[in-house]
């Protein structure tokens, strides 16, 4: 059962540069369904629109970003609600309690001159009474204990913690109110492997305690292999392939995904690895037809003219490529 879904989601950055309009097609027709209690991974190269997509899924559309088309639904109390029609007040309540978002680079959002716990009181904003605060602080302690995090970190200043610990504290705080859905955008990218493992371990144990749904954005295919249940591969504003994690690694279908998987280095393997040829497309002026065609070894005439439809070509395995289906996206 999906808990979150998007339909033909389109969201562009509209910039005004010296009176000239520039449109960056960052999210360009994404339809996806995230199942309850799964870890849904989103992968893709830098600038392909991953962060923009999750920001839109969270309903955080602020200029210059604007919603062009499509919809996002959350399933709450057995019913799908469109987040774009919700009153602001409702939406605010949904955040933290229903869906929690850990933005890219959030390690650096803590106020450096106050203790971490005070940053937390600032974030949850609302005026809470002293009584409530005490209760909350107590359960925060319990929560940290359950996750194996030292509670003294709550009273430290950000600079006293290593990057990895800071990130784990942020993840813990963001999930403390037990949201049904957690969106984490590159939570481990700036970290070394040991600290990265710590954050992943933590996400996993939060999920096993609280049984929530996680949407995890990272371009690190090693991290996806370790934690994601399903993966959506994004390219130039679209999801171009989606399948179970094992399937993506064992039988990648889209030529871009194939390059991505083949180029991954592994310890114990010194064989020559090639990278994806060519350069990432510009989202201000993307290629016609299949956006991967200028870099694709299999490109055919039709690839330059038409956009391949994102269709299921094997059970639970979707791809947008004319090699597998001739269906055209309208």
């Amino acid at each position, binding site marked *: 059962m999906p808990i979150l879904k998007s339909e033909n989601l389109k969201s562009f950055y509209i910039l005004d540069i010296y009176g000239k309009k520039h449109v960056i097609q960052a999210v360009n027709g994404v339809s996806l369904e995230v199942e309850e209690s799964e870890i849904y991974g989103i992968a893709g*190269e*830098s*600038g392909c629109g991953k962060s923009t997509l999750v920001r839109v899924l969270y309903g955080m559309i602020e200029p210059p970003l604007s919603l062009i088309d499509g919809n996002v639904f959350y399933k709450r109390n057995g019913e799908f609600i469109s987040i774009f029609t919700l009153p602001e007040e409702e939406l605010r309540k949904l955040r933290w309690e229903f869906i929690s978002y850990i933005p890219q680079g959030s390690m650096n959002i803590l106020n450096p001159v106050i203790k971490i716990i005070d940053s937390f009181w600032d974030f949850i904003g609302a005026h809470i009474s002293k009584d409530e605060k005490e209760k909350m602080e107590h359960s925060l302690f319990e929560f940290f204990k359950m996750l*194996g995090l*030292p509670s*003294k*970190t709550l009273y*430290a200043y950000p600079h*006293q*913690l*290593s*990057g*990895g*610990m800071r990130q*784990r504290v942020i993840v813990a705080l963001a999930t403390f109110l037990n949201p049904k859905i957690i969106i984490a955008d590159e939570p481990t990218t700036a*970290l*070394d*492997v*040991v*600290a*990265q*493992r*710590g954050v*992943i*371990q933590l996400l996993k144990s939060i999920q096993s305690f609280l049984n929530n749904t996680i949407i995890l954005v990272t*371009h*690190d*295919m*090693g*991290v996806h*292999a*370790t*934690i994601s249940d399903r993966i959506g591969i994004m390219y130039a504003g679209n999801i171009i392939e989606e399948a179970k*994690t*094992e399937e993506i*690694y064992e039988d990648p279908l889209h030529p871009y995904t194939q*390059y*991505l*998987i083949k*180029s*991954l*280095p*592994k*310890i*114990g*393997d*010194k064989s*020559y*690895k*090639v*990278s*994806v040829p060519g*350069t*990432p497309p510009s989202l201000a002026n993307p290629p016609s037809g299949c956006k991967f065609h200028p870099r694709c070894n299999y490109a055919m005439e039709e690839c330059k003219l038409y956009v391949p439809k994102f269709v299921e070509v094997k059970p639970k395995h979707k791809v947008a490529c004319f090699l597998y289906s001739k269906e055209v996206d309208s």
Partner: protein
Amino acid sequence: MTDNNYILKVENLTKIFTLGNIFSRIKIVAVNNVSFEIREGEVFTLAGESGSGKTTVARIILGFHEPTSGKIIYKGKDLTNLNKEDRNFFRREVQAIFQNPFESFNPLRKVSSYLYETLENFNIARDNKDEVVEKALRSVGLSREEVIDKYPTEFSGGQLQRISIARALITKPSLLIADEPVSMIDASLRMSIVNLFKELKEKSNVSVIYITHDLATAYYISDKIAIMFRGEIVESGEVEKVLMEPKHPYTMVLSESIPEPDPKRRWKKQISLSAFEEEEFLLKGCKFAKRCSFVMEECKKQEIPYFEINGRKVKCLLYK
């Protein structure tokens, strides 16, 4: 002029930073008694978690920091007292590539101006500048035409990083120091940079100090590796040995933490992590003692020496 083909020798390098504010003042031994050598045409990886001192070692070699103590010998010459001529020679021979390509270029300056500036600075190719620039860019898979007249924001991170490598290659260096050159670059472009280093080593016999915490690419391109922890090298040797059969408990944790791109081999064990890194810097004996699952009483009391086993050096009392 070189003994045993060593191009660079680092001997007992130490760097102490004094940190502090009005409330407290502490000394951080960012680099503690670090020694290693690099041969011609060798790729040497310095790996380890962030804050372990990798960048500080690189910056000392490049002359951006004075070492507190220790020696650096490049092609037989002591870098701490070079005359002007030798210094110019060194600046030409040793080139650096940094982590964030967007920080290496001024957004208001055309990218190609950096290449031409390097030609000027080293008085290279007075009459055929365009040709030399073209050649350097070709070697990183770009062309002068693609780059000329463009500003940094018009390139992707991977392209910019390749341009900074092209700039570094203009002086025909013998040693490249690359400090986390791929950590800002995603997997699909990462290999194009890493393959460049491989090619330089294989075709032009260039030596490379590759600083990274990405152990999979380190395995892929390097000959030797040194693992740093809290300012010290805890294990060093051939990359196959160190990463496939790690001996130091920290190297074991490190190699177990590499997220393998293979969903069939997910982690099972939980690992323990440090909360306050300053505490570890200040430990007397082994700095890994707080997290080590083999810790013994004696580990906390003494400076740990290096032990040789199977052609590698390990700083751990388990191998006494």
